């Protein structure tokens, strides 16, 4: 391996900064922490390449605003957003603003590693990342109509019950559709399905370009 991968943690809470730092360092990442978006943006120009692990719920400036500021600054640091449980709306907003992935608090080592893996893929091998996204988009395109509906509803943040009710099927059927969706898209979790979904433009208004393709075209 070459030099250690750099992760910048932005969270207003010390316990999160400390614990995540320890967890990531133990796994070989280099970690720097910031207690707010402002303190990150202040030193942005001087930052070495790396990924940003960004909390969405922060006083002063929340994660979405920080993401927007990063876009404006032309930052090339891929962003992974940390959200609360079931906060798909916020996550979707962050992905639309160019975040690579989102993870729900609390998260396991595996989850954060998957997200960071994707982020570093984009940072280090952007063409592979694009290929990955295109493959995912193909996979999404080849989904059955029913599965596409499920995916769209997941992207809207609908619960299983709401989906079952809206689609007129029972809960078991929804569970099965979700499981099939995971295997078709070759991912481990619904969260990752959503990463792909947003990357592939599911749940997005027609005519909008994907943020990552825009980034890649730069």
């Amino acid at each position, binding site marked *: 391996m070459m030099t250690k991968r750099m992760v910048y943690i932005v969270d207003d809470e010390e316990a999160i900064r400390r*614990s*995540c730092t*320890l967890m990531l360092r133990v796994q070989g990442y280099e970690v720097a922490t910031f207690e707010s978006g402002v303190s990150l943006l202040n030193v942005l120009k001087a930052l070495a390449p790396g990924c940003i692990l960004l909390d969405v719920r922060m006083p002063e400036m929340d994660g979405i605003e920080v993401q927007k500021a990063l876009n404006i600054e032309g930052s090339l640091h891929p962003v992974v957003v940390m959200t609360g449980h079931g906060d798909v709306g916020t996550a979707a907003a962050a992905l639309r603003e160019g975040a690579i992935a989102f993870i729900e608090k609390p998260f396991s080592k595996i989850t954060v590693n998957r997200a960071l893996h994707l982020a570093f893929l984009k940072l280090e091998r952007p063409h592979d990342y694009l290929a990955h996204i295109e493959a995912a988009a193909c996979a999404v395109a080849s989904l059955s109509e029913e599965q596409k509906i499920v995916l769209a509803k997941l992207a809207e943040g609908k619960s299983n019950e709401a989906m079952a009710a809206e689609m007129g099927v029972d809960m078991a059927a929804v569970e099965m559709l979700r499981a099939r969706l995971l295997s078709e898209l070759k991912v481990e979790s619904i969260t990752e399905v959503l990463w792909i979904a947003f990357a592939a433009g599911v749940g997005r208004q027609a005519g909008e370009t994907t943020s990552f393709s825009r980034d890649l075209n730069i």
Partner: protein
Amino acid sequence: MGSRRIESAKRQMGRSSGYFLAAATVTAAYVLRLQLESLLDGRVRFLIFVVPVLFCALAAGRGPAILAAILSLGAGLALFLPERLGTVPVLVEAGTFAIVSIFIVWIAGRFASEKRVSEWHRLHAEDEAVRAHRTGEELRLMLEGATHYAIFTTDIEGRITTWNSAAERLFGWSEAEILGRDCAIFYGQERAESEKAAADLGSAFDSGRFSDEIWQIRKDGSEFLADVTITALKGAEGEVRSFGKMVHDVTDRRAAERALEKREQHLQSILATVPDAMIVIDERGIMISFSAAAERLFGYAEADVLGRNVSMLMPNPDRERHDAYLQRYLDTRIPHIIGIGRIVTGLRADGSTFPMKLSVGEALSEDQRLFTGFVQDLTERKDFEARLEQLKSELIHVSRLSAMGTMASTLAHELNQPLTAIASYAEAAGDLLKDPDEQNIAILREAFSDLVAQSLRAGAIVRRLRDFVARGETAKSVEDLPALINEASALALVGSRERGISANFHYAPDATPVLVDKVQIQQVLINLMRNAIEAMEICPARKLSVTTSLIDPATVQVSVADTGPGISPEMQERLFEAFASTKSNGMGLGLSICRTIVEAHGGRIRAVRADGGGTEFQFTLARPTMEPG
């Protein structure tokens, strides 16, 4: 003699004057005989004394005559004194005089009694004549004075034989004009009318008396409604000789009666439209009036209740005691309800009861004491008040629930922070243990102490949430348990009937009141009932039972049982733990909040298997401690 005379004079002048007369006449005869002695020379000495005896007998009766005879005998004997008193001729003369005197006295007695009898007869006859005359006069005056009653007689054919002045006034015919005419003239000229007149007489002839209200015609042709009475007047043998007719103009009376009737109807119509029910009873409690509103309110027709005791409109215990209430008032005159008005319970014909406001007034008429009760149905007003109360409590619960929702979401996010830290430390610790060198152990130690701190922080957040729900400090008050449950169930059972759920409530009468924070306990009840309703959604039997019972003198148990699928053994363990939910959209806070609330009240909550399957939640509440004495 002198004193007797005075006595007699005092008692009876007439009688004493008779005896005085006897003495006087005898004295006079004695003096006269003395004067005649020179002529008679000792002969017929007694003869002259017959005159006073006879005179007394005739004039003064038997008593004075006897006195006169005795005095005369004595006087006669005195004339012979003293030389010839004992001689035979003297004795013969005195004896003859005595016999004659006795005869005279006897004759006088007979004469006097004959005279008295004839006198009595004479006086009696005079009396009779006077009385008969007076009665006749009085009768005539009465007939004449009966200004409103035309009274006349007819012969057997109906021809008028007598005519009083009232008849003259009433019919307009003078006595001279009418006598001898047929009384059918008052009925009219038509054939049918004269037949009716004849028929009425016939009725009187047959049954002795006939009475009816008939239109009669005056001399001037005008009509009036008359109360006509015809009496058959019978002779000694019982044969009908004539008829007496009495005719009374009732036109005015009829009009007055009709006016009264009209006023009565008017009054009735007013009472019928008064919204309050009105019931009039006498002093025995017997209903004598029952208004239309009362009929509607109680479900009885007036005819069904009149004459019955008003207590039939009350449930027990008033029903049994009402007569005693009345008697107490009549005895003591201390009103408990009269003029005061109270809210009492009424009993309808169908057996249902309702709250009512009763105002009672007392009326004294001539000889009767009446009580008039005005009844105002409070059902609607109560319903309205209850509804208002319910809305208020709904509002409290809803605002509380929504505050809880916001709070829960805030706290859930907040909870993620320590949990994230915990997860991260644990992941790091796991990795560090793969290579446990000195440095890593030191890091691990630090990590574990942070881990504990974060776990405790998470616990503190949960506690804050529970404290928020249970509010920490409780505002306890003494509450009626059934009322509290009814209010809570009104909210919890919204829409349950549509889901085919039947709710049953069994309240033990001694299991109330309780000392609780009403809103919190209602929240527990709402939570348990909503859970039960949700649990039964997929079951064929959907019966919710809420039961209260007294399990010891200080503790009441409330149970909420359903006929749902029951709770799995694994879940049973964690039932009351926070965030343990089997519901797909549940936070898992409901039962944990219930437990917090119940325990804050010093009670216990548990779930058991209900008798017919399903789940029964039981919780205990404290009764207020009774003050000594």
